[in-house]
């Protein structure tokens, strides 16, 4: 058998190690990521090209998923919209997870009053209603990509902080951390070498979940008209602009909604299988 280069081989082994639901989730997630990266090249038409067919046209060989309210190819618009839906959410989720993890690490290692202050501030963010916060942000700064990313990241950072904090506090009490302290190690060393490597796995799983929540939140904002502004469109805006087609029985409103659904379900399936696999390992390690 021909040996594959390292990265694909590792991916293939990872694929094989997953249960069926996880494999399905992985395939869906990879497919969407691929589309987010190369969607505009694959698209059969330009994003703004108005077709000869009528508005809310049915699926046909020329327009696979039909046309939208202006008669543009819906398939193209979903492929291109993936970049905004996935890209924005990915950026926001990364920001939320990294900030949450780092803050939690610092708070735990420094401890005492610093932990108190940071934790209470994060609690204050946690109780702020997310929709109202988003409305405020957009009302003040207007809707732009950086504002959207920041809004989503700030909304979902407290959750990541809480999870990371619980992990870090548990690890901070481990005896190997105590040994490091008795060696006079710096706070930086304890945080980055002793604690962080042991909390990466749960935080990665948490990152996946956070990504899904942010997709839903941003789609919701776009549906309200507060998200990505025309002429660009993410999946949430596609649902919104084609809403009137619902009464004509057009698939134009269902297709972007389906895209959102498959992405979130796929990611969830993948993460679920990852965490349960992890759980089995931990249990066996203890016994």
């Amino acid at each position, binding site marked *: 058998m021909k040996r594959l280069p390292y990265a694909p081989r590792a991916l293939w082994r990872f694929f094989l190690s997953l249960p069926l639901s996880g494999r399905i989730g992985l395939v869906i997630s990879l497919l969407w990521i691929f589309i987010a990266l190369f969607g505009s090249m694959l698209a059969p038409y330009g994003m703004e090209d108005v077709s000869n067919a009528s508005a809310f046209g049915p699926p046909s060989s020329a327009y696979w998923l039909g046309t939208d309210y202006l008669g543009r190819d819906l398939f193209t618009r979903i492929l291109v919209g993936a970049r905004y839906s996935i890209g924005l959410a990915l950026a926001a989720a990364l920001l939320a997870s990294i900030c949450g993890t780092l803050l939690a690490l610092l708070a735990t290692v420094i401890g005492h009053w610093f932990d108190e202050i940071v934790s209470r501030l994060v609690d204050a963010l946690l109780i702020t209603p997310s929709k109202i916060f988003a409305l405020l942000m957009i009302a003040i700064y207007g809707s732009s990509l950086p504002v959207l990313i920041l809004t989503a990241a700030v909304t979902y950072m407290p959750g990541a902080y809480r999870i990371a904090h619980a992990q870090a506090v548990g690890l901070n009490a*481990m*005896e*190997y951390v*105590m*040994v490091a*302290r*008795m*060696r*006079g*190690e710096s706070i930086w060393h304890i945080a980055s*070498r*002793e604690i962080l*490597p*042991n909390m990466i796995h749960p935080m990665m799983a948490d990152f996946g979940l956070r990504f899904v929540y942010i997709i839903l939140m941003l789609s919701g904002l776009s549906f309200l008209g507060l998200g990505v502004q025309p002429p660009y469109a993410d999946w949430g805006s596609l649902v919104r602009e084609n809403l009137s087609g619902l009464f004509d029985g057009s698939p134009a409103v269902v297709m972007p909604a389906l895209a959102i659904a498959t992405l979130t379900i796929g990611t969830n399936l993948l993460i679920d299988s990852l965490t349960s696999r992890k759980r089995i*390992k931990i249990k*066996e*390690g203890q016994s």
Partner: protein
Amino acid sequence: MSRLVVDVSNLRVMARTDDGDEVPIVKDVSFSVQAGEVLALIGESGSGKTTIALALLGYVRRGCRIAGGRISVGGKELVSADPRELLALRGRRVAYVAQSASASFNPARTIMDQVIEGACVHGLTDREAARKKAMALFRSLALPMPETIGMRYPHQVSGGQLQRLMAAMALMTDPEVVVFDEPTTALDVTTQIEVLRAFKQAIKERQISAVYVSHDLAVVAQMADRVVVLRNGEMQEQDEISRIIGQPENPYTRCLMQAAEARVRLTDADARQTMDSEPVLRVEGLTAGYGKPDASGVPALRILDDVNLVVRKGATMGVIGESGSGKSTLAYVIAGLLAPAKGKISFHGKPLGGTLQQRDKDLYRRIQLVFQNADTVLNPSNTIGDILARPLRVFARCQPRDVPRRVAELLDMVKLPAAMARRRPAELSGGQKQRINLARALAADPELIICDEVTSALDTVVGAAILDLLVELRRELNMSYVFISHDISTVRSICDEITVLLQGRKVDACLRSELSVQPRAPYTNLLIDSVPELRLGWLEEACRRIDERAR
């Protein structure tokens, strides 16, 4: 004439590993128990003794299955029995006494409710009759206040009492066989002897047939009539207890017995050498604890109270005490993890700061603490090489390019191959991890090593090797130790001087050789008398001696 209550033949149990392969964990084990007989299953961790014990209840843990053989209890075949038959059998004809009674009782219900539950569920008696029977059992297990103890909740009785209450629960249905799974392993020695005494009495009175699982030969010698010695799921030897103790045939049994022997590892020359050496560590009037200090500076929860001790260069100071005696707190205070409330600690004549902030890097290096639990003390994401190299770098113990060579030397010092440096902690056994734990302390070139229960979590044979290692290092490097333990025989085997702690106070202190010289503090005598010895009839003798002393 006598009836077989348990008959196990060619039992094989398979377990599924992480990779999905099946490996045998019990291989072709056969034994039988006659009515009124106590059979012991003895072996170290991983020998399959608990798996066999659970199989007697027709139960296997998740991921395991009975692959072959027969198990019959009271004439009933278990391997082919369906779940409903097993349900009727468990807790009625076979009963189980688990290792941790405190984890086995439901904290939200009274003890009596839980003790009689089994008998009531099986529909054997009504509640009132069950209650009366339970009280009779409490009495025969020598529990205090047998009439009212059932009204308490599990947290209101001591660990030793809870273990006896669990035995009472098992005996409620008059089972044909009782399975005791390490019932005294989690207890202090002075509690263990009470529990053993009560068990033995009850077994004799009620003619109970039992399977007694333990890793401790000395305990088994008191309880069992016959012994099955297990290793890695295979039967090594099976015979009457007197024969096994008297003339063990199997090399593994002999090895077990050697490790259990309270061998003194120090020679008189060692003792003489350190007798007049200068003191390394001096602790005076030490009081420490947790919580808010009051006006006089004494913390709300006082753990240590006015403790004094002196450790000499090249000598080993043994600190012995049972759970709650404050011995680990003493280790933390010396290591600088907990500031003392009162008292002085000096190291080489210079006063030692109470917290880590008040000490400098050189002091961190010179005093090393080795923790008990090797599983939580090595960072799972680092390799062994990294773990050992870190103190070498931090304390600048050698040139950076010499670090790999020094790591190999350290591994050699604790008798591990140099190739181990590439592995991660999860790939090592408990004994190997404890050696790495020790090697990390040695990497700092310390002058004083505080060993906090370093052999407690290990099997006897592995623990004995660690003790040998400590003595060897002391001779080679002239190392001073504070050796903290709950086990007087390990303390006796490697320490020059011994300090006895009871509830945070020092109740006795002496040289090792004076330990058996009277008069000693009553608690010291109780401790010494309570350690099981590997001979028949020790339990009766010890109980008699303790009773006499109490009078």
